[in-house]
């Protein structure tokens, strides 16, 4: 290729190209001028005729049933006031008008804020569930306010109010933060989503597909023609494993005391009961906004929004002794028949540790120690095991790790270890600390569901795959909760577990601390606990009134029957003072209700036709939910 080329011709021609570009662009500019300036009024007029109002038709969320097919969460029609932003001339005037509604100034301001940030072609729900007065107020002024329309939309109804509120959860308008999460992909501003509990875990299943109506409207907003109508399709229904009867008993028995109850099938993992007190009413959240209620609930010092069953961490107290027993037998440190002598206390590492019984328990073996909850036995066992073994077996029983139940926000709990202490305090582990941990005090912390799951493993020898949702309906299994130390069940020797179960049976049936949980014919096994919330030394410094705030927590955790267990129940009553006195009877009522539901007490025999009806009634809900994999609305 020549280095010097005579390009002059080409260069002159390409200059011509530039002239051509400019000339043709002038034509484009000319036409743009014509359309956007000279004929702007004409086109603006045409644009006004293109008035379309898109009215979303909210898809009802799927219904939620209990395990017997009883509706827990339902939908009802509600009249909502919707503001169409494109029609609003002056937002301030609109909001002046809206002051006529029964709506707090604060809520109004919040809605106004939303209205100001939305795109012009979105609609804002101003108020849900209008009263008759409010509806007539709006309708009477409709002519002056074409931007407001009353739209019928489905609204969530939690039929039993506070019952199982934490498990069911609540819904609400999607937040800006949530909009950015992949969990809520496909949602847009103003959408209602599940924010808590099952409503959140199964949001995708429950969410339907919204429909819409495209209406041609005139300049005052009156519909001229329906251009398009897309029906909404409701979300899928869910059947939970919760048992409404048992749940009701648990919540009634907890009463006004803060605490939690969990019950589940230790083999299948079906959660029958999940109660947490104090609770909140999810119906208050079912309307889009109610700031006052929200503020009241979220700032409540009792923290009603916390699901204590899975989020609150407590010292397990004496219930931890069953974990110690498993560790002792599995490591071979003790034998089922080894005995110790309890004189009412023991001096270890230069410190005197009390048994709860002043006179002492005398000579006790493992099962007797569990039955009488003898501290001295477990102090000595703890000394023999050492913190490393305690840590290892606690973790193998799932403590210190989420249980994997299908709800968000579970707490991990805490199993203290040398490593942990080094990390947190920088100090080394003292052997004396092991002694407190051995009776479930010290740094050891568990959530009720973790403790129940550990006892479930002792009961069945298997890891319960905990879930709130019946299989086959969007069921997504459960996360394996236990850390990598355990792989497959059974991980413990059956004879060791049997010895621990034997001790737990004695707790309930041989005048042990848990006799309040006894159910005739149902072989209930369990363990009580009365866990301190603050140290003895601290308690002495407090006034009587102050001290009552830190009253001991009452625990009961157990299962039934002894062989082939069907149900695990864990109860904690905060400040309940006595595990045997306060928690065990609650568990007993749940065991009894479960047992009687399965084996109805023999009353006077029903006449034959009625018997037929009765058996049909109990059978029908089952197949509907189990085989169809979801009842469509």
């Amino acid at each position, binding site marked *: 290729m020549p280095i010097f080329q005579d390009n002059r011709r*080409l*260069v002159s021609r390409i200059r011509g*190209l530039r002239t051509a*570009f400019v000339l043709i662009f002038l034509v484009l500019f000319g036409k743009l001028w014509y359309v*956007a300036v000279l004929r702007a009024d*004409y086109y*603006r007029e*045409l644009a006004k005729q293109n008035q379309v109002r898109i009215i979303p038709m909210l898809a009802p969320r799927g219904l939620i049933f209990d395990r017997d097919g009883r509706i827990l969460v339902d939908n009802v029609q509600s009249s909502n006031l919707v503001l169409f932003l494109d029609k609003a001339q002056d937002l301030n005037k609109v909001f002046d008008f809206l002051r006529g509604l029964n709506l707090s100034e604060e809520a109004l301001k919040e809605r106004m804020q939303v209205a100001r940030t939305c*795109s012009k072609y979105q609609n804002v729900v101003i108020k849900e569930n209008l009263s008759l007065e409010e509806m007539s107020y709006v309708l009477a002024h409709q002519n002056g306010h074409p931007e407001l329309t009353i739209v019928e939309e489905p609204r969530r109804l939690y039929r039993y109010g506070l019952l199982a509120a934490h498990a069911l959860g609540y819904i609400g308008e999607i937040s800006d933060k949530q909009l950015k999460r992949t969990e809520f992909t496909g949602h847009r501003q103003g959408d209602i989503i599940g924010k808590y509990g099952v409503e959140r875990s199964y949001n995708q299943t429950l969410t339907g597909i919204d429909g819409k109506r495209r209406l041609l409207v005139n300049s005052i907003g009156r519909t001229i023609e329906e251009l398009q109508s897309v029906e909404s399709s409701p979300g899928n229904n869910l059947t939970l494993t919760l048992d409404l009867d048992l749940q009701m008993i648990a919540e009634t028995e907890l009463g006004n005391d803060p605490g939690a109850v969990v019950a589940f099938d230790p083999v299948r993992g079906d959660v029958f009961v999940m109660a947490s007190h104090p609770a909140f009413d999810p119906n208050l959240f079912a309307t889009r906004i109610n700031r006052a209620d929200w503020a009241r609930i979220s700032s409540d010092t009792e923290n009603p929004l916390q699901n204590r069953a899975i989020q609150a961490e407590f010292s397990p107290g004496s219930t931890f002794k069953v974990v110690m027993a498993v560790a002792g037998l599995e490591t071979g440190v003790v034998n089922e028949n080894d005995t110790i002598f309890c004189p009412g206390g023991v001096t270890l590492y230069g410190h005197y540790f009390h048994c709860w019984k002043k006179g002492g328990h005398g000579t006790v073996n493992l099962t007797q120690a569990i039955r009488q909850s003898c501290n001295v036995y477990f102090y000595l066992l703890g000394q023999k095991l050492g913190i490393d073994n305690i840590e290892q077996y606690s973790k193998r029983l799932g403590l210190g790790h989420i249980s994997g139940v299908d709800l968000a926000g579970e707490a991990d709990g805490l199993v203290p270890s040398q490593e942990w202490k080094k990390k947190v305090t920088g100090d080394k582990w003292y052997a004396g600390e092991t002694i407190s941990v051995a009776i479930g005090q010290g740094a050891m912390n568990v959530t009720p569901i973790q403790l129940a799951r550990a006892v479930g493993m002792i009961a069945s020898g298997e890891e319960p795959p905990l879930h709130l949702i019946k299989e086959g309906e969007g069921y997504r299994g459960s996360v394996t909760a236990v850390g990598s130390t355990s792989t497959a069940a059974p991980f413990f020797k059956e004879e060791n577990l049997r010895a621990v179960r034997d001790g737990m049976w004695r707790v309930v049936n041989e005048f042990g601390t848990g006799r309040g949980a006894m159910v005739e014919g149902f072989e209930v096994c369990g363990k009580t606990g009365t866990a301190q919330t603050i140290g003895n030394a601290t308690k002495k410094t407090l006034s009587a009134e102050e001290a009552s705030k830190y009253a001991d927590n009452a625990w009961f955790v157990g299962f039934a029957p002894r062989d082939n267990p069907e149900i695990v129940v864990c109860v904690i009553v905060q400040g309940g003072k006595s595990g045997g006195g306060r928690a065990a009877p609650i568990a007993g009522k749940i065991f009894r209700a479960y047992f009687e539901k399965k084996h109805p007490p023999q009353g006077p025999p029903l006449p034959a036709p009625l018997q037929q009806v009765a058996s049909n009634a109990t059978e029908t809900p089952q197949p509907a939910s189990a085989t169809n994999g979801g009842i469509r609305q």
Partner: protein
Amino acid sequence: MSIQRVVSRFDVLLFGGAMTLAFLGILGVYSASLQNPASTAFSRQLVWTGLGLILCFVVFSIDYHHLVDYAFHLYVLSILLLVGILIFGREINGSKSWLTIAGQNFQPSEVVKVVVILALTRYLSGLTEDYLKRQSFFVLTGITMLPVCLVVLQGDLGTALMYFPILGGMMLIGGLKFRFVAAVMVLALLLAPTSWLVLKDYQKQRIMVTLDPSLDPKGIGYQTRQSQIAIGSGGLLGTGIGNGLQSQLGFVPEIHTDFIFALLAEETGLLGACLVLLLYLFVLSRMVRIGEQARDRQGILIITGVASLIFFHVVINVGMALGITPAIGIPLPLLSYGGSSALSTYVALGLALNVHYHRFVY
């Protein structure tokens, strides 16, 4: 090449102009997907832009003389690709011109345009004649017609038509005698009735309606009319992004691809629309300037092809939105949503920057 030299020889003005347009395009695509929360157009457009820029710098970094040396190889590969797609390609909206790579649909016929530019450059730069001889004329036409026929067979007439401005522009610069220009015009006049036989009904309708939009205000003329309403009702400053009635409520069809100019005109007003046109004019005149300063014929010819390609896309697309040209689905370079168009435009941009960079002999 040292960094300093790259920086000093890099045409910041051209690149800056193009990037401003790309930014406006991303803004437009964002606005167009506001009403459809499931739309992934916005994030995809960002990805395409990123990929396009990478490709642009790859093309930029290879001396264009090497590219021209391998032009015929690339050309043969392209033809094979087009034939392959004709057989194995994917059909979308009646055009079997799509290739699916990693779940993304892609139209190679867009990028082949750039290869044709290189092939024509290769042939033209080898000629010694001042004015094109008849033989050269036919060879150049042949080089262009082969991919055009394949693209027509794929059922994508709009894309096929955009090969001709490249050929026309490059032949004019390469030295086309007036005789030939006249002959082509006569041929076109003669061919027009024949092409009427080849065109599909909807294509004929489009042409008729462009000539007279009132023929069918609710049907074919609808798109153009709604687009004109959008442009006409935007006012001086527009309605603001996301607030255009015409654009947001689905009156203007294909708003994020073919009619993105209408969206920008409605939502950013006359000022925005003028800005877009001025930016294009700036980019094009920058390219002409690069052509003037180019080191050799190859550089000038490449610039001619690239500028013609962009110029005609802009004129046809904006003309369509304004109701001057028929509504053929041609994307607006750098603005419209779409991967194939974006990639071919960035490759073309890379070529122009390349010619500028190598404008000195040493």
